[in-house]
């Protein structure tokens, strides 16, 4: 299926979403989580894990495969619809009959639909981009009536070796100034350093946030750390992390993992008959920005996240005080404060995030930031950012269940320059 364009809600003023409260999340399923795929085990491919997750999601929602009429996926879990395998060093495709990596290092909607024997599918889309945008696309598609009971798998994988290390043959445009010496990660540290200089903070003050996230993630049975590295992560650990680039420590970077999750998205009307309590979608909004110069600056990160926050409030009709749970992306942990401050959650203003982290952000306290643990607490699954709010609003988060009254949850990711905000509620109104 060709990529659909123009579905994003990214032109101001966005206005209240036309499908506000008419679309719902009703099921979720997860595979196990591995550190990486060995390239051999066919029961541990992204395809295999996506199937496990999809079957679990359907069971969770209490639906049969015959009820599914749509599948929307982000084939490789990466921007630009790429297979994650493309980011590793060049390697040959597998011997026949595997003349494609579909089902191995990426999972198209077509592949998954065939494997699951979904007989009544009328809408397939494999162009979901990164996780939040994928969910936004699915919510819009269901709201628009393209399908009524939709599976939304998100596979995200990891191979042996190092990624982003493949040699490029060109560095066009502005990349000629940055690619030769690897600005990508340095840029994260650069902007964070600007933040610390502007607001009089320092990197060590991130420690309480990252440590709390790991605590939360250890309470999630699917998280990489709960499964493979259950030792507590301490502030001593964090402040002793090696710089990847000054301002960005190794413990600010999420750990790539091999895992898949899947969600069942449907109309509010159909949701009433399904097994789980519906979580209603109040809004999705998107934004993509370009730096004015060669590299992104703090000024731009703040400007863009401000636009994203205003857009989300305009689209959902909510105000900061309405948000009970807030889950900003933390794949680089040092980005989370831009979103937190832009949304003004719990009254946090520009430059105050690190003071906020030093307060009570514990799971059972008054400000349970990233109650699912985010990527720092679960590995680079990204799906904690939807599964946790969903389970919290449904009251089935188990040991992670927050003590605050949780009726509205907001999550945003990935980075300020390219993000999508999702707003969930226990009520369609």
């Amino acid at each position, binding site marked *: 299926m060709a990529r659909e364009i123009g579905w994003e809600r990214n032109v101001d003023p966005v206005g209240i979403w036309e499908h506000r409260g008419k679309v719902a999340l009703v099921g979720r399923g997860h595979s196990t989580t591995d550190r990486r795929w060995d390239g051999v085990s066919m029961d541990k491919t992204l395809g295999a894990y996506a199937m496990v997750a999809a079957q679990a999601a359907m069971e969770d929602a209490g639906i049969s495969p015959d009820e599914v009429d749509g599948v929307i996926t982000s084939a490789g879990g990466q921007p630009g619809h790429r297979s994650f395998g493309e980011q590793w060093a060049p390697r040959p495709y597998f011997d026949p009959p595997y003349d494609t990596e579909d089902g191995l290092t990426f999972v198209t909607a077509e592949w998954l639909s065939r494997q699951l024997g979904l007989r009544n599918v009328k809408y397939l889309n494999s162009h979901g981009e990164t996780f939040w945008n994928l969910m936004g696309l699915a919510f819009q598609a269901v709201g628009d009536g393209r399908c009524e009971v939709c599976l939304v798998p998100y596979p995200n994988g990891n191979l042996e070796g190092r990624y982003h290390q493949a040699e490029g043959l060109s560095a066009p445009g502005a990349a000629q100034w940055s690619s030769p010496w690897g600005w990508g990660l340095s840029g994260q540290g650069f902007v964070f350093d600007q933040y610390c200089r502007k607001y009089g903070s320092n990197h060590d003050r991130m420690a309480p946030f990252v440590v709390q996230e790991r605590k939360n993630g250890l309470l999630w049975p699917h998280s990489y750390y709960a499964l493979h590295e259950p030792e507590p992560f301490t502030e001593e650990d964090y402040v002793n*992390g090696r710089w990847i680039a000054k301002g960005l420590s190794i413990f600010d970077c999420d750990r790539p993992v091999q895992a898949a999750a899947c969600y069942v998205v449907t109309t509010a009307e159909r949701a009433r008959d399904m097994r789980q309590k519906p979580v209603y979608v109040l809004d999705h909004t998107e934004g993509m920005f370009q730096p004015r110069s060669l590299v992104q600056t703090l000024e731009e990160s703040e400007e863009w996240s401000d636009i994203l926050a205003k857009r989300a409030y305009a689209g959902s009709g909510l105000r900061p005080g309405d948000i009970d749970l807030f889950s900003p992306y933390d794949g680089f942990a040092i980005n989370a404060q831009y979103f937190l401050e832009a949304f003004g959650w719990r009254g946090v203003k520009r430059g105050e995030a690190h003071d906020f982290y030093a307060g009570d952000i514990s799971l059972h306290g008054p400000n349970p930031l990233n109650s699912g643990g985010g990527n720092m607490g679960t590995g680079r699954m990204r799906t904690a950012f939807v599964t946790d709010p969903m389970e919290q609003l449904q009251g089935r988060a188990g040991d992670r269940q927050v003590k605050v009254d949780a009726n509205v949850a907001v999550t945003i990711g990935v980075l300020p320059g390219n993000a999508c905000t999702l707003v969930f509620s226990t009520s369609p109104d």
Partner: protein
Amino acid sequence: MKILLSFDIDGTLELGDPPGGVTVEMVRRAHEQGFIIGSCSDRPLSSQRAMWERIDMVPAFVASKHQLGDVKMKVSADAYYHMGDRDTDFQAAEENDFGFWWAHEAVAEPWLALQEDE
């Protein structure tokens, strides 16, 4: 002669992720023969300590990879060696005047020859 051996974990020790070729038995043998042993890895310090506890050994040090120089200041020895599988291991060793073995070289236990040379 006191010789310090610093082990990277992931990609170097068999307990690493991915596993390397240096076995716990090799590490234990080095310890028993009087080498000063410890780990210097990108793993969190608490994770490194947990690894040593699991194999019932007490390391002389655990450190992050960029702290190899601190190991030299804190632990007295006549010679210092680090082994690992990444260029960051090599760089850390070179910057801090440690001898260095790549992980694939370390599986031959080259440190044993150092004692024989004494």
